[in-house]
């Protein structure tokens, strides 16, 4: 598939709702990873899963952790480029608008450059972003994927 990619090619995942459950999954995975006991570990209240705590911090309600958006963009890149997207290159994302409960999120990427290097790789430069259902950008960034040539 990658051999057919050229500058301007765009990919996107289907729209997803940033549900309360999706936010909580990211909250709980944080301590689960730290403890690595083979069990899921829950966390104390955060701005991502507790309305009262979020409001106390000046937010109108719970907001998604930005890393959920970044991981959805990574997922899109892995769908397109395979495990090479997780193996060498770069991913940079900036969270320019908060994502509230049940907001629509669409992960997108567009190829901006294609370059063969002397290491037997094709290096793809990409713009990456997440947008809402109206096309408003929520997360913006860039990526580079080093795809091994066959």
């Amino acid at each position, binding site marked *: 598939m990658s051999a057919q990619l050229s500058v301007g090619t765009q990919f996107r995942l289907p729209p997803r709702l940033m549900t309360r459950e999706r936010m909580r999954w990211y909250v709980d995975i944080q301590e*689960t990873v730290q403890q690595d006991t083979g069990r899921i570990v829950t966390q104390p209240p955060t*701005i991502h899963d507790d309305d009262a705590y979020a409001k106390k911090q000046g937010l109108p309600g719970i907001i998604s952790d930005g*890393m959920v958006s*970044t991981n959805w963009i990574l997922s899109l890149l892995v769908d397109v480029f395979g495990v090479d997207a997780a*193996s060498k290159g770069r*991913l*940079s994302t900036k969270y320019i608008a908060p994502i509230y409960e049940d907001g629509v999120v669409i992960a997108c990427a567009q190829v901006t450059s294609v370059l063969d290097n002397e290491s037997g790789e094709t290096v793809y430069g990409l713009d990456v972003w997440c947008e809402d259902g109206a096309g408003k950008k929520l997360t913006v960034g860039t990526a580079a994927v080093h795809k091994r040539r066959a």
Partner: protein
Amino acid sequence: MATGRYVTDLDQGDVLGPLEYTMSKFVVREYCHANELHQDCFQNDVKVAPPTLVHLDKLRLYKHACPAGTGPTARVHYEYDATIHAPIPVGVPLRVKGTVTERYEKRGRQYVIMQIDLNTAQDDKPLITYRDTVILAYKKAD
């Protein structure tokens, strides 16, 4: 030096860690499950971790260097910027270190930038260089 208490105390020049740990298949599978990374390379034939897991090394370093916790305000993550030098291997000892490179105020909010270097523990092979930017409080200072 501003380590030893709250995350909100951190300041330019602070060094967090290094710490060593080993990436497990359980961590990769559950992290990917939580983030809907359902690809075979992260759920079945698990040999590498997603590079985004380096973000949780920040929390590992915070917990070690700031044992009193977050502090009076909740952080908001603003930017993730990771250069992937090599895949993060599963089942191999890793070493992670954080260095606070900047702390500054912008439009009434405090920003902290930390560089996190993830290497293999045995031969110090660079895996990820991660630049993390957080806002220390959503509320603007008066």
